[in-house]
């Protein structure tokens, strides 16, 4: 296995770092309050200079500064994706570990549930659940966290089955380690790589889901900015104000693209056989 860190990867990681910084430091970086409306400043194109203030990315239909809204939108994106990934990673891995270690009927029940969950298309499952529970940041995070665990379970289960057969696990058991200790200390570290690969691809997907659901009006609610909801608002003004949809979408695409590149790279590191294919 050769650790490869190319210039391309460095650029990708730098862009992802920029995204994280933009999200975390949005209140410091944003030139204006993302919620402040002004009827005089409606739909000004990018680079507008008005009353001594410049609007680098233009303004929206309520005269709000687009740059500030995009920066705060990064916040929504990062927050939802991180919490959803952590939640589903924990739930999914726990179930997969238990199923792989205990086998028998526990494994049958858990894996059947996984198959069933995976046969409902993900976006529809999320749409239905958010619609029933009502839109909003909290519900969005809970729904994504609780519907996205099956992929982790599938990987954790398959990996645990393999690792559990290895001699050192038997040795640990014979040395008197309890089930919980064996799973936590001995199995988990050895299945973490493939789980991280899933988590990375899910991270990109969750960012797309948050934006998509917010675009449909089921995610972050106005007036709070999310890349998806900014674009949904901009869709109505597409003939007059292209910047409202192009800029947030470009950010979304760039971030997800970088995450996918990083995910591919990570997968090649974890599984060199996949890389050589």
């Amino acid at each position, binding site marked *: 296995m050769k650790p490869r860190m190319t210039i391309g990867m460095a650029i990708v990681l730098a862009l992802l770092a920029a995204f994280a910084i933009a999200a975390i430091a949005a209140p410091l970086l944003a030139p204006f309050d993302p919620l402040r409306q002004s009827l005089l400043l409606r739909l000004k194109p990018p680079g507008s200079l008005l009353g001594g203030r410049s609007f680098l990315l233009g303004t929206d239909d309520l005269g709000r500064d687009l740059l500030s809204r995009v920066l705060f939108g990064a916040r929504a994106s990062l927050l939802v994706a991180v919490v959803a990934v952590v939640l589903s990673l924990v739930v999914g891995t726990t179930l997969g570990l238990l199923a792989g270690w205990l086998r028998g009927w526990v494994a049958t029940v858990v894996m059947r*549930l996984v198959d069933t969950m995976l046969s409902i298309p993900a976006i529809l499952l999320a749409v239905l659940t958010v619609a029933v529970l009502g839109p909003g940041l909290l519900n969005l995070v809970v729904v994504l966290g609780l519907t996205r665990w099956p992929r982790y379970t599938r990987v954790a289960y398959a990996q645990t089955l393999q690792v559990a057969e290895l001699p050192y696990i038997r040795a640990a058991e014979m040395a008197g380690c309890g089930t919980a200790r064996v799973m936590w200390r001995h199995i988990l570290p050895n299945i973490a790589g493939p789980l991280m690969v899933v988590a990375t691809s899910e991270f990109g997907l969750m960012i797309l889901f948050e934006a998509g659901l917010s675009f*449909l009006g089921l995610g972050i609610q106005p007036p709070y900015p999310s890349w998806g909801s900014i674009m949904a608002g901009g869709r109505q003004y*597409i003939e007059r104000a292209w910047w409202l949809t192009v800029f947030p979408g470009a950010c979304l695409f760039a971030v997800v693209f970088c995450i996918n590149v990083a995910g591919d790279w990570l997968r090649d590191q974890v599984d060199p056989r996949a890389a050589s294919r």
Partner: protein
Amino acid sequence: MGAITLTRYLASRIGQALLASFGVLTIVFFIMRLSGDPTLLLVPEGASLEQIAQLRHELGFDRPLGMQFLSYLGDLARFDFGESLVQRAPVLGIVAERVPYTVALAVGALVVALGLGIPAGIAMAVWRGGIVERALSGFVLAGQSLPTFWSGILLILLFGVSLRWLPTSGSDGFASLVMPSLALGIVAMSTFARMTRISVLDELSRDYVTAARARGLSRGGAVLRHVLRNAAIPVVTIAALEIGNLLAGAVIVETVFAWPGIGQLAIQSIQSRDFLVVQAIVLFVSLVYVFSSFLADLAYVVIDPRIRMGR
């Protein structure tokens, strides 16, 4: 393989599909009850407490959960999806009216995805390790990362607003179908390109390819004459599995382009609190998914006799 093993395989696969369908119905049933009282999802806004209580009784939501579940299954078995309280018409008819639009969109997207994805995948495998593969893999990753609502809007800006070649929304015949199909198809294109690449690479490393080359067949000739036929098998399977994803992806694409399929209907129904329609759409798409993955496995067995033995 004997007829008995084939029958057995079929029986177990049918059993699996039925179990998955039952699982889907169960999950959807419980999601609809996540909010506590499904009556509240169905009443029009501003209904009085009496109206709510009456509706709860009419719809049977005051019965024990087990009873509700049984009658829900019974209704579905008779293709009774209930009546839309907003439109005062059977849900089945409301949804069925929109299905052809979504099917047309899914077919269009599939054409785009196969037409771009398969050649890209073959090229990546054949010219492996070179500039072609690198360029194409960037293209594939980009396709996979594209939010359909952004690519859709970019298409509208380019072909609808600037060039004025295509209508920006609605369902005015074939021209209206072009942009939504592209937006939806590009994402699926990535899946096909990846699958085709791996599949062709697998085949290229086999002995029969070496043998064909030894007989003097060129690399391109070997690919065309032998590899593609065998490499097609996994791709066919993916195509079947992708149908479910295309139907689900239609939710967003149809909203962007105001295309009157079931995706747009689902979002409109959520806005008008017509939850039985939403439920029916989720059930429909999920069951199509279960059924198409069943067909995919079946096709696999028919096309490739090696698989029948269960490895």
